[in-house]
């Protein structure tokens, strides 16, 4: 049958980042220390009145913390392009959901007509 000559092609043996890379323990401890510091920073900053910027600062710190966990505890820093793409899709789709729905909420009353 066929079309399949004995050709040892390598579609399955593609290179995946450093899946077997052993992350040194000091990286974990450094990330841990950063996470603890950021947790208490965000806690104390919340008690300072920054007006409408409080939430942005809090979210920015949360994003930093989450990034550290994703990159180092979850090894994304060392992973294949596919894995990085998968996470990017998750983040992107979540932002899509939040942002586009909010555009309705934000623009509903622009015309000054009730309910519009």
């Amino acid at each position, binding site marked *: 049958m066929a079309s399949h000559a004995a050709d040892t092609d390598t579609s*399955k043996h593609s290179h*995946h980042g450093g*899946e*077997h890379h*052993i*992350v040194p*323990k000091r990286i*974990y*401890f450094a990330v*841990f220390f950063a*996470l*603890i510091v950021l*947790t*208490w920073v*965000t*806690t104390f900053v*919340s*008690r*300072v*009145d*920054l007006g409408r910027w*409080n*939430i942005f600062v*809090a*979210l920015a*710190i*949360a994003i930093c*913390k*989450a990034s550290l*966990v*994703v990159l*180092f*505890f*979850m090894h994304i820093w060392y992973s*294949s392009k*596919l*894995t990085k793409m*998968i*996470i990017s*899709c*998750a*983040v992107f*789709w*979540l932002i899509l*959901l*939040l942002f586009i*729905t*909010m555009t309705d*909420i*934000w623009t509903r009353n622009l015309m000054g007509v009730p309910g519009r």
Partner: protein
Amino acid sequence: MASQVVNPQGAALQQDSALQHHFEKAEQQKDASTIGMWVFLVTEVMFFGGMFLAYFVYRQWYPAAFAAASNNTSLWIGATNTTVLICSSLTMALAVHFASLGKQKLIVLFLLLTLLLGSVFLGVKGYEYYDKWVKHEVPGHNFDCRDEAGKPCEDAAHTPLFFALYFGMTGLHATHMIVGAGIILVLIWKASKGAYGPAWYTPVELFGLYWHFVDIVWIFLFPLLYLIDRSGAPK
């Protein structure tokens, strides 16, 4: 990396669990499993994401209610619990680390520590839930939101939305942690039999991804639920 397999049965266990028939190579299997777990985490991101959407909509509409309700959570308990969970993330990362090195005793130790810290987190959460129940802050059950001075919360009529999201989001989070705790128990049992080592430690690694994800959800829940308008400054 030198394999530290002490238990010969453990080595056999590692071999048995290795290559499933439909994969060509062990590397392919591990890679596929890892990607599978990441795709699963994508679904979890979207699942929690729906409640984050409801949160953002109602926080936008009822900022005073959300601020008042948020101030009724305990800042210090929340921050401490966050710290506990981050510690459990560290111990989990170390458990995976030692699994990849085959250090049997350390695998079990750090899995146990993760379980312990996770249980502390859940215990504290349970106490917080109980506290809210006693203070009539559970929607649908004699709901009555009051601040520290005993006055009704500002915009009290809309505070149930905050608390519903509080219970919904932290409840879903806690459910994920309880399921995680169950899986850790299984991992501990298998690790104590020497099932994991450099040749095969995929379940530990994949569970680590799950556990870290649950941690990340909390990293966002903490500021959104506990840190609204904590400055006490007059508006």
